Each structure stands twice: as C-alpha cells, then as structure tokens.
C-alpha cells in the first residue's frame, strides 16, 4: 500500500497559541482512517490544516508526492481534497440544487457541473426528490447527506469528514456510517473525525488517537478499540467500564 497523504511535524494554531504541536500521520490510499481523541485535542484543526483553512506554521504535508502545505482551499480542491465541516455547512436559503452546484464551484465549465450534479441526483434520492427546496428546511441528517453529496461534485480522492454524525439520531447515524463505507468502496480515501470513538474505529481501517496536539497512538482501528489506553484517554475510565 502506498501513502496518499503524509503529514510530518505539522504545527498549527490560531493567534499566539499552537494547537497542533507536531503531527505525524500517514493515510493509505483507499482506506478509512479515524481520528479520535478528547475534546480540544486538535482533531478538527488537523482537518482545517489539510483543507487550507489554516496554514501550518511548521512541517510538511505531502499529497501523492507533491508538497501541498502552502496551497489555498481552491488549489486543494483541485487536487481532490474536500472537507465536510463539522458545523452545518449548507447554504440554508439556497435550494438543494444550488447547494449542489456550489460544490462544483471551482469547475468552470457549466455543462460539466450540470452533468455531475445530475449524476449525483441519480445516486441520492434525497437530492432528486427535494432539489428545489431550501436546504435550511431539511432535517439535520438530510442536510449532512446533501453536504456529502455536494462534496462528491469534485469526485475527490480524499474526503475529510468532521464528526458527520454529530447531532444525528441513531438511524441517521447508522446511514452516515454506511455512506462512509460506501465512499471507501468506491476507492476514495476518508479521514474521519469521530466523537463516537467506538463506531468510528469500528468502520475504520486505521485509527489515530490525538492527545494535546500530538498523535499519541496509531494502529488498526479494531485493535485500538480494545486498547485500554484509548479508553483511558478518550472515553474516561468509569463509563467505559460499564
């Protein structure tokens, strides 16, 4: 297996503080990697650094042999990295369809954007059935699904997903994990941040545990699940024991 993405000694943060204090991480092509860790460990910051929202202060990020740590969000999108943010990130007053078209913003050719949008509408019943509704009128789970559909407009190689199941009910959560697995089966690489460590690690090939801005542990997802150190770091001793 080859590494699609490689982070070495990445330091990043806001204002005067560093949140990431030297992240080393490799993502293998066509795998799911799940990033877990306690609140404030820097999981979301890793994703923001990868999607260009935040410039790393030190370290290198290499995508398929090419250094990308200085790229703008648009350049990273063009290289096939999309970021599905933690917050609701649809444009609530725009229609589902327009939201989808926004996903192809960096593709300038109108017919191509339209063709891809039609293909996605074929794949997602939700998009097809409610294309002219305002995105803000959809439920939380539906919005998340549209966000993912929108991310597919660029046919990305690497999808960054920040807590896609946050605030979803169990059924929608289940659907979301199925979606992640499906994307992976199509050959896409997924970097997933998940609050729900058990479910996240269960579907991931690889796991990485973040603590205080550094990667504390890595390993196959399933084995991390059973690692007592993870429980201690993340889940807290008491409830995990129950």
């Amino acid at each position, binding site marked *: 297996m080859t590494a699609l993405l490689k982070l070495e000694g990445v330091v990043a943060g806001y204002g*005067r503080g560093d*949140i990431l204090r030297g992240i080393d991480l490799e993502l293998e092509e066509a795998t799911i990697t799940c990033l877990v860790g306690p609140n404030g460990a820097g999981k979301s910051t890793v994703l923001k650094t990868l999607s260009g929202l935040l410039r790393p202060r030190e370290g290198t990020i290499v995508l398929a042999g090419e250094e990308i740590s200085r790229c703008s969000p648009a350049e990273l999108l063009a290289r096939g990295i999309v970021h599905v943010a933690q917050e609701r990130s649809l444009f609530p007053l725009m229609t589902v369809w327009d939201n989808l078209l926004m996903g192809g913003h960096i593709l300038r050719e109108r017919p191509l954007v339209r063709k891809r949008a039609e293909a996605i509408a074929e794949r997602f019943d939700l998009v097809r059935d409610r294309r002219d509704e305002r995105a803000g009128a959809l439920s939380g789970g539906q919005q998340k699904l549209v966000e993912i559909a929108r991310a597919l407009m660029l046919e990305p190689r690497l999808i960054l997903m920040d807590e896609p199941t946050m605030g979803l009910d169990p059924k929608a959560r289940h659907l979301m994990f199925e979606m992640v697995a499906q994307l992976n089966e199509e050959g896409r690489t997924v970097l997933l941040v998940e609050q729900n460590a058990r479910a996240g690690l269960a579907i991931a090939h690889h796991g990485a545990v973040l603590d205080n801005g550094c990667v504390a542990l890595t390993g196959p997802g399933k084995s991390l699940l059973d690692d007592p150190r993870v429980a201690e770091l993340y889940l807290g001793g008491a409830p995990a024991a129950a």
Partner: protein
Amino acid sequence: MSRATTAGLVRGGAFAAAGIAFPFVFHAAWIVNIGVLTLMYAALATAWNLFSGYTGYITLGQAAFFGLGAYTLGITFEHVGVGSGYNPFYALPLVGAGIALVSVPVAWIALRTRHMTFAIVTLTLLFIVQQLAFNLRSLTKGSTGLMLPTPRFPIDSYDTPFYLAMLALLLAGLALCWLILRSKLGLMLLAIREDEEKARGLGIRVTGAKLIAWSLMVWLSAMVGGVWAYYLTFIYPESSVDPLVMIGAVLMTFLGGRGTLWGPTIGALVLVPTQQYMITKLGASQLYLVGYSAVFMVVLLLLPRGILPSLRGAIDSRRERRRTHREPVVREEAHA
C-alpha cells in the same frame, strides 16, 4: 483605567492653567477665534468619547444635540429672554439637562440595536433634528435662520468670554471623564464595551449605565452648541445640525485615541488648526472638503488606533521585552 496619580493631577492643572492664560497672552482676535473653535471641537470630541469611546457604541447623532442646544438657546432668547452678557452662560447647564432628559427615551429605543444599526439609527436622529429646524418655522424661522442678540463685550477682547466658556465646558468634560474612569460606573462601561453579554450575566445594569453615559454626552454637546450659537449670533439648520461638525469630532477622537482621557483633546489640538489653515488656504467647502477628506483617510488608514494608544502600545511592548528577559509572565497553553 486611569488612576488618580499626582502626575495626572499636575497634568490636568497645567493644562487648565495654560488654557486660561492663552487668550491673555495671545490677544489677536483670529488666534483666540481658532482657540474657541479648537476648544469647541475638543469638548465635542470629549463628549463623544465619553459615550462612544467608553461603551463601544458608535453614535453618529451627536450633531443633533449640538444643534438642539444651539436652537434652544436661540429660541429662549427669542421668546423668553435669557438676559445678555454672561447670563446665557449660566442658563446653559439647565438647557443641556433639559435636552439630555428629552433624549433619553429616544436613546432607549436606539440602544435596542447594536453595532452598525445603532450607528445608523443615531445618524437618523441628526436628520430628524435638521428637518425639525427647517420645518418648525414658527420657532426656528426655518432656512432663513435665527438671529441672536449680540452681547456687548469689549471689542478688543470680544472672543475671550466665549473662549473661557468653551474651556470651562472642555474642563468639565475632562473632569467627568476622569471621574467616570476611576469610578464603578467607568468599570461598568468598560465591561460593556469589552463584552456586553458577559456583563449582563454578571448582573451589571447595562442599559442604565449606557443611558447615563449617553445623557452626559448629550448634556455636554448641547451646552457646546449653546455657546457656539451665542458666539456666532446667527444660526440656520445646515450649519447648526452639521454632519461635518460631528464627523470632525469623531475623527479627532479617532486620531487622539478612543477610550482615553486626553485623546480627543490631543486630536482636536492637532486637527482644528490644520483645518482652519486649510480653510484660509483653500477656501471654505470646495477644495477644502477634498483636503479634509484626504486628512481623514490618512488618519483612519494609517493610524486607526489613535495617537495615545499607539504610543502606549509602543511603550508597553518595550517594557514587556525588558521584562521577559527576567521572568516569563504568562505562558500560552492549549486552546479548545
């Protein structure tokens, strides 16, 4: 926050003494005239700062109260008679207080909005008052303007009483600011400026505190307007409710430093003589406007924090550098 230091008192005393001595040293009418205008702007800027500088609510309606003060004095002259000579000066605090009282309900509505909306709403107050000045012809004589009786002060020192009145208002404004900055009210106002929602959560009566600062601003501005009207003896809507006067005062506050005690005065000392020079050189309201707007841009784009805060920042960072050699004070740690 300022502390009552000996140095501060000396500074204030020296400023007051120099201010009083000025017209007796420089007799020339045109110099005293510039002095009057400088003090007028300094007092207006200090009043603006008292509200906007301390609470963070930018008001663009100050000229409304300046104009109300001017017209109220003019109208009382017309209908009641406030005496002549120095008497009108003594009536001013009452005039100002009346206007402040009337402005409170309006301010209460305006203060339901924030940020840009607040700035715009207060700006409409300015236009409302200007419209009133145009339309209430029975009181204001509309666009013809209102004539006030010319006081019989000695010709060679005609400007001096007005100069002293403006100085008194500026000193009153500075004293108020100083008093507020060292008091609990000042603490409340600064808390509101920094984080109003947090202040509410601590039980600080934010609306009351803002209204007090507002009324003081209106009180001072109205009195300044009154003195100005008496000085010019002729007022009309465009000149007495003039957005230019207010924007000038705001610019001076920005130049000197918002939220500081002396900033507005320093700003006025720099800008008013410049402005007067430009008027004599370039002629009123034509090229002068272009020059004025250029000065404006330069100040805002190059020195947005103002003279005093920039100086203080430079001194602080030098001190900081010296101190960090000895001990690390506070270390930054992980943010959420």
